[in-house]
């Protein structure tokens, strides 16, 4: 099992300043924001399940940029149908990471139904070019650093964290997030 904080650090470490990240609501956006904020990070503060659709659109419309979606198991399962569109559109520049702690951590750690579910297998069945599930930080980090033609579905089994260590909410006004993200796509 991987600590979410370590997973987020590994993602940051493997991305260039030019790379775009769309992060789902809850702890994932909060953790990414706390670890390293950038104009190229787009944090969803609401709209559970929408991050994969937004990330897909960003990848398709910016084929020259690497795009990473980071979402939780709850968000991914809520919009599992988006896997089908991603598989069909097949953007090579898209990495879809699911941090699977088998729970709804932001709302108090209630168990999710992902325990017996294989996200990467579903990704491969729906047309992703690559799919892998890892439960060890070294594997996760190595995968991020190896060439990974997309769409790539990378599922990392993560630990349910002690809620006391929760990073603060993303305090950037949503409109400002849009403005700076749009600006970072202008060049």
């Amino acid at each position, binding site marked *: 099992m991987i600590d979410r904080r370590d997973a987020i650090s590994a993602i940051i470490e493997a991305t260039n300043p030019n790379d775009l990240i769309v992060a789902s609501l809850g702890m994932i956006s909060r953790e990414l924001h706390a670890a390293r904020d950038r104009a190229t990070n*787009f944090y*969803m*503060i*609401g*709209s*559970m*399940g*929408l*991050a*994969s*659709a*937004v*990330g*897909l*659109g*960003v990848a*398709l*419309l*910016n084929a020259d940029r690497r795009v990473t979606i980071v979402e939780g198991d709850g968000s991914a399962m809520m*919009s599992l*149908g*988006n896997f*089908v*569109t991603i598989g*069909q*559109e097949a953007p090579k520049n898209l990495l879809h990471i699911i941090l699977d702690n088998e729970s709804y951590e932001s709302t108090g750690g209630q168990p999710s139904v992902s325990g017996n579910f294989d996200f990467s297998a579903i990704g491969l069945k729906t047309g992703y070019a690559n799919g892998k599930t890892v439960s060890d930080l070294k594997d996760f980090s190595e995968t991020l650093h190896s060439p990974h033609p997309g769409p790539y579905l990378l599922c990392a089994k993560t630990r349910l964290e002690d809620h006391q260590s929760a990073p603060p909410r993303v305090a950037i006004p*949503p*409109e400002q*997030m*849009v403005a700076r*993200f*749009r600006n970072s*796509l*202008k060049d």
Partner: protein
Amino acid sequence: MHLNSGVDAIELLDFLKSIGLRTMSGVPDSTSGPLFTAIEADPDIRYIGAVREDAAIGITSAAYLSGELGTVIMQNSGIGNVVNALTSFNLIYRIPVLLVVGWRGFGGPPNDAPEHWVMGAKTAELLDVVGVRTLVFDPKNYKTELSELVNWMNREAMPGAVLVKQGDIL
């Protein structure tokens, strides 16, 4: 010309392109059937098939993040699926998207099939409650009205909708 004659789909699509709408997504609807046919045949349009209407909003919101305005084509029965995307994403981040919504069950019963009666009667009211500026498509005056709506959406960075009835698009 018949008083209620609709607009040719290719002409409508050319107009939408002329006001900057080229990235589209949605879930098909028979009211806009001819428009979907025109889209399929038009290499200038990037259409991404969504599995749900809220996903179509997410995909086309990325168009705005990338410097253009996106369009969602859907049926009014999908309005229930887009409320959360609109209220907790587009309306707070101020990300405009044009919704082209087929108005099944317009006017309520006995018009159309029973599954469209409740939403047909509530469609305009529901979009208004959510806070989406909504226009009823007028085949005679659509260019002026749609241009005004899209200009307002770009200026205010807010989503907008146009309600299309059976026969409006031919």
